[in-house]
């Protein structure tokens, strides 16, 4: 489904980034990094809204010729960015949303791990498996 999934810390450095191995990893890094611009823009636009009623899902950040980039931001300003192949039209907003929710749950599990220091890079097998499952489900 997704071709690249990234978890980005509040300070905009990557906590986790993983892409489909067949494609150029670097390109996705650039894409995800650039998408942070839009994430920041959206967050600051949302900033005024009530915090607890805020929608975590940011929607489509921006499309490129080949990929669509979706964003999601947790209450602690950790960002999830998912890059999806544009040709994969079967993916609707709802699916993306549920994928993000799954990602968020998995991330929460990591945060609950007492041995994990918030802010460190994520090295978790469970998280890997989950991300893999999201990337493997090729329609």
């Amino acid at each position: 489904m997704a071709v690249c999934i990234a978890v980005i810390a509040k300070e905009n450095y990557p906590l986790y980034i993983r892409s489909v191995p067949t494609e150029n990893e670097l390109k996705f890094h650039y894409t995800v990094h650039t998408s942070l611009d839009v994430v920041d823009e959206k967050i600051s636009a949302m900033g005024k809204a009530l915090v607890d009623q805020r929608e975590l899902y940011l929607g489509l950040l921006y499309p490129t010729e080949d990929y669509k980039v979706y964003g999601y931001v947790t209450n602690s300003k950790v960002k999830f960015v998912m890059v999806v192949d544009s040709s994969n039209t079967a993916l609707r907003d709802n699916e993306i949303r549920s994928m993000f929710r799954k990602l968020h749950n998995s991330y929460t599990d990591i945060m609950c791990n007492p041995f994990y220091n918030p802010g460190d890079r994520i090295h978790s097998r469970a998280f890997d498996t989950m991300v893999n499952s999201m990337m493997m489900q090729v329609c």
Partner: protein
Amino acid sequence: MEWRRSYGRAPKMIHLESNFVQFKEELLPKEGNKALLTFPFLHIYWTECGDTELYKTTVKDDITKWQNVLKAHSSVDWLIVVVESDAKKKNKTNILPRTSIVDKIRNDFCNKQSDRCVVLSDPLKDSSRSQESWNAFLTKLRTLLLMSFTKNLGKFEDDMRTLREKRTEPGWSFCEYFMVQEELAFVFEMLQQFEDALVQYDELDALFSQYVVNFGAGDGANWLTFFCQPVRSWNGLILRKPIDMEKRELIQNQEATLLDLRSYLFSRQCTLLIFLQRPWEVSQRALELLHNCVQELKLLEVSVPPGALDCWVFLSCLEVLQRIEGCCDRAQIEANVSHTVGLWSYATEKLKSLGYLCGLVSEKGPNSEDLNRTVDLLAGLGAERPETANASQSPYKKLKEALSSVEAFEKHYLDLSHATIEMYTNIGRIRSAKLVGKDLAEFYMRKKGPQKAEVYLQGALKTYLAEGWALLVTHTRKQLAECQKQLGQIENYLQTSSLLAGDNHLTEEERKRFCQEILDFANQQAENQAQKVILPMHSFAQLKTLHFDPPNAVVHVGGKLSIELTLLSQMPIPVHVDQVAIHVHFSIEKNSYRKTAEWLTKHKTSNGVITFPNEIPGVSLQRNNLPALELYEMYERSPSDNSLNTAGIICKNVHMLLRRQESSSSLDVPSGLTLEDGAHVLKCNNLTLEPGDNKITFDIQAKEPGTYTLRQLCTSVGKVQFVLLHIYPIVQYDVYSQEPQLKVEPMTESLLAGIPQKVKFTVTTGHYAMKSGDTLQLSNADAMPILYHPESKAVIYSNTREKISESSLRIQSSEKITSISLPVAPAYHVIEFELEVMYLPSATESAVVKENSANKENHRKNKEKQKQDNCMATVDQKVTIDCPWSIYSTIIALTFCIPFNAKHSLLSAGKRKYVQVCVQNLSELCFQLSDYSLKNSAECTDLQLVPLNPASQQVMYSKQSIFFVWELKWTKELPLSLQCLFSVSFCPATSEEQSLTLKPFTYGFQVENFFTLYHVKTEIFPPLDAEYCKTGSLCSLEVSITRLVELSEVDRDEALTESDGYCTTKLMYEVVDNSSNWAVCGKSSGVISMPVAPRATHKVHMEVMPLFAGYLPFPDVRLFKYLPHHSAHSMQLDADSWIENDNLSVDKNVDDQADSSSIRSRGSLHSTASGEHKGLPMPRLQPFSPGQVFNSSTGMQILVIPSKDDHVLEVNVT
């Protein structure tokens, strides 16, 4: 006109335009006609007929015929208008209104719909009537027209839906359907319902997209294959015309390609959106469209010549942008850059790829193949549109120009790129701007313009570094390295190379290549040897740990210290290093405590390993570089009442935190901060650093005392030096020098006098090395001999308390000096040995003297002190020691505690006298006591002390007391006072060896006035008629005082010689009941005159009443000497004796505190009274010494029974 529609759609105001066309049968729509715009909505029959006959003959038939035609076409929307003129009417006034033409027509045609016929009277006249009729007509016309319109529109929509439902049927054509739905859209547009029109197009758009998607999923519709024909024209979007008829025709004729369809669709959407004043949506949709088209072409596997799509996209982007610019003013555009910037960057990207494709980016310019391709691309653009042909700028012209030459391309590309970067920067999308900048840098690099590229690369690198994107950093650095290499920035290039060589995101080969680059440079035999390149260390290697040996990093002068560095080499291959040097800063520390051996031994906690914070090489985030906040609480209190004024938090390292962030570390190699003073450099030459951890050991011979701080670490590889500018956390080692010291301290908590105890001698050699023959010379004191065993050993420890050797101690004692020869020990060692010393309370007199001198003032104090904390009396003994390293003698004071405390008391029973000595052990040790004796120091043979003590040996435990009693027997007259000396031998109960001759403990004391003068006997008798005493009834108390001896020396002073020859003394008696058991009735005290003669008895009677029932102790009877006022001469003496007696009385009553205190208070009252009336003739009271009065009834009790009529029962609960 208000338009109400079905299905609950909200009423809208619409503007419906209509054309009036002459009726022709051909114009009537055939079945299945889909044209809505030209649809005849309302048929109007106009007649001017005013004549009935005429009507009947021609008009009626005509109308019938018309109606039939209409019916045949199932059109029910018609209207008959009858135009009347006044002139004609006037002629026919006789005609009944019923039979007017209008009525006839109504009758004939409008059976049920009378409103289908309208009369228009005198349309050309300006009269109120004609006006009215016009109005009525127009209203009717509108209503009917709208009715018909609504009906037909509904029908049309239904038809359209039906058509849409058929889409799965094989023959269905999208283009046909497209035209139908577009018709609807046109109608809406005509009605100025742009929103609705847009919806129609959106629906078409979505439908088409869905088909494409389905096609991609393998569910292809036949008609779609048509759109899959190869793309031959890519002339971009045309948004200037409201309707691109050219394309529409293509669609109508089913000849459109995908791009044509999309272009047309979008141009319509764009037009409508602009009508709707939503230009920003245009840009947004445009981007989506372009992406979508590219995707769809891919999905449908349409063959597209290379570059064609890029052209199309580029042209389209610019077209959209120009269209938007055309309908908005400048300010609006600037405010909405965020919507358009995507298009800009997309156009830039496309132009770039076109440029690469057509060989316009290479240094040499396009080759023939490139040129061919360019020509093909330009051909596909077709001719320029007529609308823009005359404009100076059009996307078409731009593209054509850009592709025409290398220079033009560069110009256009740079323009676009700069515009895009600027826009991105303006709206704060820095990252996007950097990405475009990087593309630009790439372009410059291709064009061999590295100096221009560098700026962009550095900018991008900075951003990525700041946000810690390792992979991007690596990639950008690689580009930067190439750029710097071309620029010839050797230092920067080497630095970047070193960073890359240590970057594990690169492949092994690449890392090796960069590493080799550095090594190659380093090994160049440059003529200018002095010029060295200094690079920061962190990319090359990382300082991980530092290990000191000895671990506390303190070494004495001349000592050896080794520092072991663990250096993590980041290089992929082993690197031969010429030299590793640590630059050390030396400072003479004022506070020399750190440098003493004492400090050494106390601070042994650290294991000597300093671990440096682990920073990720190359990706050291700036947030990590910031030190942690150091916050402290702060309270400010008002000086007057100490109440809290302010409370707050202080950040102690503000200067660190609020410092300006250092700009890119790669640029600021501080050339000034190179190598500090060369005096203190630790070096290690010719090493090979393997990849990974390397251990480097530095050995230091400590020279000058002081603190050495490691500042910089420098690794030299040929011409290249890698410098770690600051070693943090601060690493220091200390070199100290120390004076020799001697310390003597007891092994136990305190030294006890009288027994041999061990004392530890500690010699800290410091900088002095013990030679053979060095001795400690101790001056002997009589009271404290030094005992030693020949087997006693001296132990030599190193500074770190490691035992080094042991040697026996040789001690020579002469009369005055004990000399201890010390073993040979090197400097900065510690010699320890133990000696036994014993303090002998040198002579008895010393103790006695001490006791006596202290007696008067201190006795009471001591007593009280002992009561409180039982502290031992102490004696200081000074020893003078001559040390070999100093010409001065050291004087050491040892404090000994006397373990015992002795007390004595005199006990009497009638005339018999006993002396009791109580010895209390104050120490923690147990002692064995033996050979106790009490001797009368005065040579008094007629006095005998008979011991009443059982065993000859007794063990005395810690904190225990032992009492000894002797009976005093005498034959002759007793002396006034008795000097006694108590002595007891003791030795520690645990020690087996009895060889030592320990001196006994002695205690001297004096007993005075101990002979019994008076015997007091008290008796209580019940009332005469009763057998027992009863509470509340009076009893008689009889006190009989009997003198036992004749006038003796003791009371000679007080005796009064009376005229008739014998002496009397005056005594005062007092009956006191302290425990309130008795009520003394009447006089409780009185003065009696006692004859000084044995057996002289004096009896006193008084009445007492028992207050309680039970066995009640007798009330106390006290006797005092009653001195007449005349004895002024004895004032002095009295005062002394007074105090003394008081003391004694206290002694006697130690166990009865309340009693004694009452006496004392009484006594002091008397004494003050006597003091005050010193000059006045006042009689005084003086108590007897203990033993002078014997009260035989002390402790007697009498039974008191409760009286029967006791109404009051008191219950005391305590």
